[in-house]
Every structure is written in structure tokens, then in C-alpha cells.
């Protein structure tokens, strides 16, 4: 089997598991909408339209990052609980294919959550422009790439779910900067470039180093 076929099979496995169990995505959907409702009570009423646009844009990115963390804590749950990871590591495929497949399935989960989150945000706060949608799409790649690697690291630790947000948040700061910039700035192009750069750098590192995380 070629590398891409391996990745396709592994991605299909993740999506199928989610389709049968329906654990992660519904939780992410409910969480992101709840978070947005909570955030409504954070923004004081009577702000000028411009201020409200900037403030709520920042809150959208908080919601996205927190929802991503929620999804990522479950990313390697099946592998860990059922001892699946040992089998995957012993399978005759490149280990980085496991990472790529996990990244793709996390992107898929994030997209599903955002299909609900962005209209909800537009409904509760202000309209969403094309730059924001582009930034969200770019950010998904970075979040999923780094997140899959860190989720595998956290899954190997004793504290697991507790550790992942601690590992992930410092690395998510550049994503938030890029995202908020693209949402709020008049000229979003350089923030989008920055997000693309982040994706490229961290995707390459995560792809190259995943093998060392899963092998015993």
C-alpha cells in the first residue's frame, strides 16, 4: 500500500469510529455554542459597533481554541483505552501516516464544529467576513497538526486530559494572534500569511517527530 492509501484507511477508521460512537463532535458542538452564550454575557452592552466587532472577534477565537482542546483530549482516547496504538505502531506503515490521518480527522471534526459555530456567532454577535473564514480554515490546519502530536504526547502521560491544555495553549498563542488579527484588522492579508507560515512550520515538525512519540 502506498503512503496515501495508508493515510486514507487510517482517516476512515477515525471517522467511522466517530460516526458509530458519536462522542466527540456532539460534545464539541454543544460546547462551542455554550461558550458563545457565556461570552455574550461577557461583552457589555452599548458598545460602539466597531468596538463590539473587535471584542467579539477575539471571543470567537477563544471559543475555537477551547473547543479544539476539548476535541483533542479525545483524539487518542480509543487508541489508548483499547490498546489500539500498539497495533497501529506495529502495522507495516510509516508512523507519520498515523499522525497525518489523525490530523485530517481532527480537521474534519473542527470543520463540523465551525459549521455550527460561525453561523451561531453571526447570529449572536456580528457578521463573519471572508477573511475570518479564511483564517479559521488556516488555523484548523495548525491546531490539528500541533494538537495531534501533543495529544499523542499527553496520552502517554499519567495525567492525560489534564496535561494537554497546558502543553497546547502556549503553542496556540501565535494562532490566536493570527486569527484575531485577520478578524479585526483592516488589512488581514499579512495575518493570513502568518497563519499559513505557522501551519507549514509546525506541520513539518510534527510530521517528522511523531514517530518518536509513539514508539516504545
Amino acid at each position, binding site marked *: 500500500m502506498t503512503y496515501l492509501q495508508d493515510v486514507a484507511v487510517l482517516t476512515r477508521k477515525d471517522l467511522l469510529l466517530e460516526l458509530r460512537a458519536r462522542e466527540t463532535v456532539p460534545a464539541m458542538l454543544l460546547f462551542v455554542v455554550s461558550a458563545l452564550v457565556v461570552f455574550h454575557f461577557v461583552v457589555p452592552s452599548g458598545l460602539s459597533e466597531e468596538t463590539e466587532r473587535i471584542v467579539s472577534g477575539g471571543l470567537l477565537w477563544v471559543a475555537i481554541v477551547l473547543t479544539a482542546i476539548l476535541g483533542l483530549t479525545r483524539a487518542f482516547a480509543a487508541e489508548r483505552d483499547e490498546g489500539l496504538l500498539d497495533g497501529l505502531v506495529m502495522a507495516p506503515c510509516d508512523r507519520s501516516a498515523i499522525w497525518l490521518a489523525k490530523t485530517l480527522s481532527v480537521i474534519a471534526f473542527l470543520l463540523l464544529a465551525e459549521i455550527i459555530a460561525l453561523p451561531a456567532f453571526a447570529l449572536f454577535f456580528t457578521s463573519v467576513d471572508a477573511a475570518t473564514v479564511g483564517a479559521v480554515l488556516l488555523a484548523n490546519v495548525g491546531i490539528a497538526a*500541533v494538537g495531534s*502530536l501533543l495529544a499523542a*504526547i499527553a496520552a*502517554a*502521560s*499519567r*495525567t492525560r486530559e*489534564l*496535561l494537554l491544555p*497546558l*502543553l497546547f*495553549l*502556549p*503553542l496556540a*498563542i*501565535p494562532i490566536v*494572534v*493570527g486569527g*484575531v*488579527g485577520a478578524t*479585526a*484588522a483592516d488589512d488581514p492579508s*499579512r*495575518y493570513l500569511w*502568518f497563519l499559513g*507560515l*505557522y501551519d507549514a*512550520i*509546525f506541520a513539518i*515538525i510534527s510530521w517528522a*517527530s511523531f514517530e*518518536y*512519540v509513539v*514508539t*516504545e
Partner: protein
Amino acid sequence: MLALAGVVLLVTGVVMAFYWVPMAPGEGFRQRIFYIHVPVALTAYACFAWGAWKALRLLWKREERYDLESYTAVHMGTIFGVLTLVTGSIWARTSWGVWWSWGDRQLVLFLILFLFYCAYFMLRYAVEPGPRRERLSAVYALLGVVLIPVSFLAIRLAESLIHPTVFTRDVNENLTSSQLGTFIVCLAGTLCLAGALYKIELTGKRLDRQLRELRRALA
């Protein structure tokens, strides 16, 4: 030897900073903390880079000793990072009257790095010692050294958005020869000090490990 050189250089540097360097225009006396703050910050970067280099060697060669070396270097880097935060905070207080300023890139970057490397220690404590932990912490240490330039870029980008008026502190421009000389002496001093601490810590940790192995063999 390294420790002695570090102490001598640092004392000379501080004396030079206080008695030899002329007053900086506009900044006055308080500018002299520059000769501690910036060398300490650069030393912290050097420690993190050294830790990441050892982490890379670990993944490459799979030799156990690199793990301890990488860990000790990151440990030293974190200590110097905290010193950077403290000295930077004092400088911000004397310059702008506040203990914390989001306008200071170096400080914000070190805060992010501090959080990152605290998570590194949490990771190490949450995994059983062994080859698995060595590799997990090596991968995370490598991510850290990439995070430094990326975060620096991010802070610059965020600054232009959040702070339309950027604080300027023109000490880095046009250093006179006496300023540059003092700065280099101080930098050499902190680097020697970090190197000496690194060696002591490493020796201590190695002894600790040998003692543990000896105990296990005896038990």
C-alpha cells in the same frame, strides 16, 4: 574555573556599568539595568537552544545521557528566563511606572516561553522515567525552540494591532564603544555563569542517578 571566570567577568561588568559607562541620554541611571537584563535574556535563549540541540542529538543517537543534558539546559534556561522577567519588570517599573507592560516584546515573549517550559516540566513529571519520557520531552523541547521565533513574529504582529503607539526604548541603537564593551563583558559573564551552573547541576543529577542505581543494586 568557569564559575570563577563568570564571577570575575560579572563583577567587572557591573563595575563598568556603574562607573565607566556614561549616562544614557533620556534614560539616565536606570538604563544600567540593560547590562544585566539583556545578557540574562540572551543567556536564557542560549540555554534553550542548547537544550533543543541535545534533544535533537537524543532523537538522532538515542543515547540516554543526552536526556539529562537537555533537561538540565532547559532547567537553566527557565531560571534565567525568570530572571529576565524580574529584571525586565523592574526596568518597566522605573521607565514607565508599571510592573508589567504588554508593549515590551522581550517580556511578553519570555512570559510565553516561561509558560511553555513550565508545561515541559509538568510533562516530565507526568511520565514514568524511561526511554519513552526521554523522547517525549525531547520532541517538546524541539517545539519550544521553534516557538521562539514564531512567537516573536506573533508578538510583533499583535502589537501593531493592539498597541497603535509602540513604546520605544532606544537603547539598542547606536551603542557607544564603552557601552558595547560593558555589554560584551556582562554577556560573557552570564554565559560563563550559566555554563558553570549547568555543569554543577549535571554532575549533581548524574550522581543522584548513580546513587539510585547503586541503591537498587544493593536492595
